């Protein structure tokens, strides 16, 4: 019996109401596990709708759908990741960090979640934490241009201009069409040249 189940009787003792029996706690727990095992096909439509809503600029709608998908299938790492990205876009860095961490907990080799967590930590001012996450993302997916770019930016802020330049050069090589990478490359190259 979980802590929550133990709390059910006391929670139900409201004004003049009788307590709900907890003799079925074990059966309820087994039922919950059974229900969850049957739910994956239900979570997917909400996950996909979340993606579509975000593409249309409806962040709140997307967040709501990702949350439903997670409720139906708590182990869906991609839904946690996408929820984290949406929260990050809304400026909720703490919420985003928590969701990125959950995604990573569920799938430790999730390079995009490490990249996202790096970005969120960077925004929160935790440069060392961000650098560690970018490096993990690069180790898991060496061709992830944005992870190299993020690492370059973070190293530059730490004062390591040469290290930074190496990373943004690598990022530009991997994705020459990304404007944010091109901008970071130009800025860091200028500073490195001046230094």
């Amino acid at each position, binding site marked *: 019996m979980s802590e*929550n189940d133990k709390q059910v009787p006391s929670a139900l003792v*409201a004004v*003049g109401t009788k307590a709900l029996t907890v*003799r*079925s706690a*074990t059966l*309820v727990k087994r*039922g919950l596990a059974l229900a969850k095992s049957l739910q994956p096909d239900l979570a997917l439509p909400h996950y996909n709708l979340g993606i579509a809503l975000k593409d249309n600029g409806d962040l709140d709608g997307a967040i709501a759908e990702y949350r439903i998908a997670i409720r*139906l299938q708590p182990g869906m790492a991609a839904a946690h990741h996408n929820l984290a990205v949406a929260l990050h876009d809304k400026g909720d860095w703490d919420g985003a960090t928590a969701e990125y961490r959950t995604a990573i907990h569920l799938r430790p080799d999730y390079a995009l979640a490490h990249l996202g967590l790096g970005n969120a930590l960077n925004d929160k001012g935790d440069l060392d934490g961000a650098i560690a996450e970018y490096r993990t993302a690069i180790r898991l997916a060496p061709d992830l241009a944005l992870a190299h770019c993020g690492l370059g930016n973070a190293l530059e802020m730490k004062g390591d201009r040469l290290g930074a330049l190496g990373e943004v050069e690598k990022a530009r090589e991997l994705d020459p069409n990304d404007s944010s990478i091109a901008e970071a490359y130009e800025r860091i190259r200028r500073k490195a040249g001046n230094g």
Partner: protein
Amino acid sequence: MTKRITLIKPPEARELEKKRAELATLETRLAGRELDLATLQAELHSFEAIYLRVVGSRLAELDEIEAKIAEAMARHQPNDEEAQKRASQARAQAYESAQAVETEQEAGKREPFRPSENLKKLYREVAKRIHPDLATDESERKRRHELMTEANRAYEEGDEARLEAILRDWESSPESVKGEGPGAELVRVIRKIAQVEDRLKAIDAEIARLEESDLYHLKDQVDQAEEEGRDILAEMAAGVNQQVVEARGRLTSIGGHSATL
């Protein structure tokens, strides 16, 4: 020259007026939150009964067969401590499941709790007028508590006539008559405000705890599936039925008996 007399309310009376207005707002909020809690409780109560009837009964049947299998295995291996332990655990599980299902069978068949708007309105009115936390002494509190118990039962059973009768009786009872001077009344109102605020906090905590329970999460899963046009309880029951058939086969193959199941 005529003198104009302006009636100025004493500060006590002004404060009483202010506090009464504050209490009135809180009473309305309290009635709404009591309704939320009573509805959630009744929904969980009826859902639990339905779940136990549709799925729990089958799980209990499965547990009974598994216990018989474990006991048959233990008989075959009288010196195997692990086998004896497994048999005893399986029997305990089967007993627990059977007890849970039996309790609900005794209570009879239930339908999902879906209160009408009028039923909710009546309950809200009862909670607003009779709530025990609006009592000013112990005997009044006891009387109010008894009436609320009756009202909660009537709400869960969908008995609108009973709720109306409770309200009617209360309106004509001496407890509903107010009196005394503004000073005593002010003290009474302030005390009521504190009680109502405490109760609101307790309700919020109770609802939050209920929403964290396994039963709530299970109901949530079933409701979500229903919205998508699926009957997850029936699917779960079918899955357990399959396990029951397989378990019966195992029991027969090891020489146990399944005919009585």
